[in-house]
């Protein structure tokens, strides 16, 4: 049943959002702290559990895959409702932040690759 997948996804989101709000309260900010991240971790944990009772069949999974595939279309809609005019008035900020973030990330790749050498996981992956 497709709805099982959708329901599991919804369950994870509600729990994660609740936990995020709880965490926010504990930390003294009136905000949802990391609720989306907690929900993702919960969904990954539940979907990786060996417990067969929780195992979703392909039909149920398609309820989750549908929403996963709607991710980019929803982001397009999200982009279309932003206050872009206000953002454009300080446009260079976005460009400089974006370019520098990529440049710095690229610069670090050789450093991380060096850590890779001799990693035991090497053999398992290949």
């Amino acid at each position, binding site marked *: 049943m497709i709805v099982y997948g959708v329901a599991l*996804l*919804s369950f*994870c*989101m509600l729990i994660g959002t609740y936990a995020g709000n709880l965490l926010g309260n504990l*930390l003294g*900010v009136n*905000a*949802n*702290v*990391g*609720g*989306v*991240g907690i*929900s*993702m*971790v919960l*969904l*990954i*944990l539940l979907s990786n559990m060996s417990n067969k009772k929780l195992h979703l069949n392909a039909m149920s999974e398609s309820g989750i*895959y*549908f*929403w*996963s595939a*709607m*991710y*980019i*279309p*929803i*982001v*397009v*809609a*999200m*982009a*279309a*409702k*932003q*206050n*872009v*005019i*206000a*953002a454009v008035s300080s446009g260079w900020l*976005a*460009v*400089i*932040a*974006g*370019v520098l*973030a*990529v440049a*710095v*990330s690229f610069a*670090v790749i050789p450093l*991380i*690759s060096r*850590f890779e050498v001799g*990693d035991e996981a*090497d053999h*398992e*992956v*290949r």
Partner: protein
Amino acid sequence: MDTSMLATLLIKNGLITAFVFVGVVTWVSYWLSKNLTRGHVHGSAIAIAMGLALAYVGGVYTGGSKGLADIAIFSGVAFLGGSMLRDFAIIATAYGADLTAIKKSGWVGAMSVVIGVVLSFVVGALVAVAFGYRDAVSITTIGAGSATYIVGPVTGTALGASSEVVALSIAAGLIKSILVMICTPLAAPYIGLNNPKSAMVYGGLMGTTSGVAGGLAATDPKLVPYGAMTATFYTGVGCLIAPSILFFIVRFLVE
């Protein structure tokens, strides 16, 4: 049916209209990607850029602050692109990420995600400060946007940032995403991007799921799931630490 009847129909079925709208934007974007850029710029990146461009047009047309959604017939776009469905879809992308495969990539894969998020965040936050932002919420949101265009708005919404700052964070993440798409095939030979593991490290460092997926698709389609897998964790880790630990650090430094 005259125009006003059509408009009423579109307004009454706002969410359905939004589906058609996004479908058309996506179709045009993928057509442009294929025919104008020969697939070098991924269709999804063009679609998001078009969304931002249309939001600009909507803003000019209505003078409002919700972009295209201020035009009545596109009001459903605000719901489709609102935080509820957005978070729902993001959480769904985590499904199928295989924990054992992640474990196989070892510490390096996990470290690359955390290092990638923190690096991009710090760069974005410093740029925000350089541009005169002094409040912790705005600095954090822009820093988070430099991680990805998802982490930015999720963080901004959680912390109550202004729509202007959220739009900036999306723009920064979008520029990063487009650059990653373009630079990945060019950089691949120099950074050893030819096996699943390096793809995971790369996805973890760069993070932007559409950028990594688009860039790897242009490099070697077989590497896409590995890069996208760590990139998915990047968004999760970003959503987890940007509005919490990183925000508190920024607030401590600023105040």
